[in-house]
């Protein structure tokens, strides 16, 4: 495994994650119902039970379930070994989607704190100690903000309590 070049690992990761189209600025997402694509080339509204976990996938590339699957795949790559972590970190952070304020809060704290932990390119302890690392934020290419009326909801609940 160690002898495989980084470029090859990147290609493998790219194919496994399947969200590269989201980085195309001209990519057009058509909101669709949850169709499953059943290989080869057929579609159904309900996935056959034998391919639930293996080959079926949501056709809609930005569907939240696929997003969850992607993030699990990315996390698995990043937590396999230190070598894979270096390769997988840019994939982990390149597209970030948040739907709640809590997610946004956690991500912002993580990105802000990473200036002390991560510097792009060769390791530079001086920059890290000074908090001048690039941080994980340098890897973020796309931010998708879909926060669902949280503050309105909280207000309505608090007014009910009052």
């Amino acid at each position, binding site marked *: 495994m160690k002898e495989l070049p980084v470029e090859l690992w990147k290609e493998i990761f790219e194919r496994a994650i399947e969200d590269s189209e989201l980085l195309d*600025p*001209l990519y057009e997402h*058509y909101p669709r119902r949850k169709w499953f694509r059943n290989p080869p080339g057929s579609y159904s509204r309900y996935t056959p039970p034998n391919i639930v976990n293996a080959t079926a996938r949501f056709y809609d590339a930005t569907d939240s379930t696929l997003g969850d699957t992607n993030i699990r795949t990315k996390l698995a790559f990043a937590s396999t070994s230190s070598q894979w972590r270096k390769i997988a970190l840019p994939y982990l952070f390149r597209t970030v989607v948040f739907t709640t304020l809590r997610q946004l*809060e956690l991500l*912002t704290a993580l990105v802000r704190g990473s200036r002390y932990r991560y510097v792009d390119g060769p390791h530079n302890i001086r920059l890290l100690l000074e908090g001048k690392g690039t941080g994980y934020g*340098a890897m973020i290419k796309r*931010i998708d903000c*879909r*926060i669902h009326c949280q503050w309105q909801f*909280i207000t309505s609940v608090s007014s009910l309590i009052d």
Partner: protein
Amino acid sequence: MRNDKADHVTYTDMISDLLRCCPNLRIYVNRNTQSGSPTPTPIINALSDIAIIPTQTYHDGTIVTNSNVPYCPIERLEWSGKEGLMVGDLTFLLRTTPFLRKLVLGPTFLCSSRLSDTLSDPQIPLQCLQSLHIDLTSLHRAYIRYTRRWLMPALQHLQVLIASVPWKADLLFLLDAVGENLISLHLKVPQHTSMLNEDWVDILLRCPNVSFLTFNASAMPVLPPKVILPNLRIVGLEGCLPDFRATNEYDRPESDRREQLTEHLTCLTARAGTLESIRMMDDEFLLMSGPNAEGFGTMGWEVPRRKKMTRELSTWKDWYTELKAAGITLANCDGDPIGCFK
């Protein structure tokens, strides 16, 4: 428990903080469902600050910055949720994103409050903008007036959402400016919005070079035969389901819808010289691809509807045969031929 205002402040602070940490951000998509309030100015400022001054390194190691040409990596901005955007903020943002390639503007836009919107910068160059989505269904669309200032020489794709709110003057004005270069035009029209044939002609006459045209077959008249579109290769039809069923209680009878689609297809067949493909944009047409045509894809549907779908397949077979004879491919929304009719 936090209150409304505190949450909004937290949201503003956190997003701005995050954006300041993302010097390589290329795409910002805002689909927040919070309606009635504009995106806070600190977020706009943080987005506009994402600019890198390009440097040039010479052989002797000296690094020179070329501050005349700020490089901003942002290539796509999208406000397609319910959160608004001040027109002044939009104008300000567009000035600082010269490499923008796609701009999606949703329905909720609020009026301007900045003096600069009306006085300065008569032209905003958007040299790289290739794709623009605008929504003319809202009365709060003050920004559309400002498109007169936008210079969009590279614009190739325009998607417009129109409904019962008056739209014609705004759209025609925009098309006067950019219609000549358009390659792809997508007119999104909700069901039960009527469009006059004259309006349709006015629109098409302003887009003579369009090669990919998408419109709603159930809400719009047929493609006017008198408008010659020499480059038209692909037509996408929205608003027609494969089994012609009603989408709501106000919909017309099935026979009417079938007849209307026949008119559209007949009219399109007359353009057989240039037209290569008709795409049925409703995703349910995926069910008519390959093995699905035999009923596999309709598993889980109630039996009457599955039987009805099977019956309607014969109608589609007839159309498929006619179109094929004219050299036109019937395809699904992905452009894959609907290959079930052997």
